[in-house]
């Protein structure tokens, strides 16, 4: 079944491409980490990189790209929720006197 093989090879190539991007972002993060810029800037950039990495994995490796909206909701409502929780606690726990 040659065309089956063909699909397989195509899929593998796609996954490998994603992995290359992940690697690129990892290196970028480390470069930023070493770069002589203010700490807050470093943290912001590194987190941008992490979010990008996570996005790549979720969309491609976890195929959320092809899934029903329901699965998006199941995945992202909790994320919003704990981010919201953390933000709400800022005045109480992070910025306490």
């Amino acid at each position: 079944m040659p065309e089956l093989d063909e699909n397989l090879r195509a899929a593998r190539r796609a996954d490998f491409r994603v992995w290359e991007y992940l690697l690129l972002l990892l290196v970028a993060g480390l470069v930023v980490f070493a770069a002589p810029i203010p700490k807050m800037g470093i943290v912001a950039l590194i987190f941008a990189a992490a979010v990008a990495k996570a996005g790549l994995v979720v969309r491609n490796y976890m195929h959320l790209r092809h899934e029903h909206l329901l699965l998006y909701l199941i995945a992202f409502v909790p994320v919003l929720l704990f981010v919201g929780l953390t933000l709400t606690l800022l005045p109480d726990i992070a910025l306490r006197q």
Partner: protein
Amino acid sequence: MDTLATSPSDVAVEPDRIRAIPQGKVGVWWFLASEIMIFGGLIGSFILIRLAHGGWHAEADHVHWRIGALNTLVLLTSSLTMAWACDAVKERDQRALKTFLFLTMLLGLTFLGIKAFEYSWEISDGFTPATNLFFAFYFTLTGLHACHVLGGIVANTLLWLCAVRGRRWPMIQHRVEFAGLYWHFVDIVWIFLFPLVYLS
């Protein structure tokens, strides 16, 4: 609610796309949702307390970011092999499936090995969970994550054994995908732990 007024009392089944999703997949995603909340709560607490203490930059200098980076590389690569295993399953390519599941297990074990070495190094340097709050969080976060990696390795091993025996193929087919979802989730958790713990 359909009443007799609004619709004839008969099967009025609009195409139900939600019911069409494989139940196993929905279940795994719900499970991942609960895991997101657990790690989210822990990471949130870490960020909040860390901010309250002005960033803990001095304490954070005692973790070895090079090892962390290496482990990130290992885990990212294991995600690739896991993804390849899923591709293999889709194309019913048993040989590839065996290879890539095995590679994923191997990389997972490598990750744990490096982590164990790192722990022993830090502890011998006198940094334990009781040393200070940064290391308390460090060991809790990475330790909880390591347990999840271990769980993933166990799942992959079981599937690998099934693949080697070549039994129950239709059942494995789905399970490899679900194990993959879990494995990638564990990878994502690390993607965030790495900058949080090592680089900030």
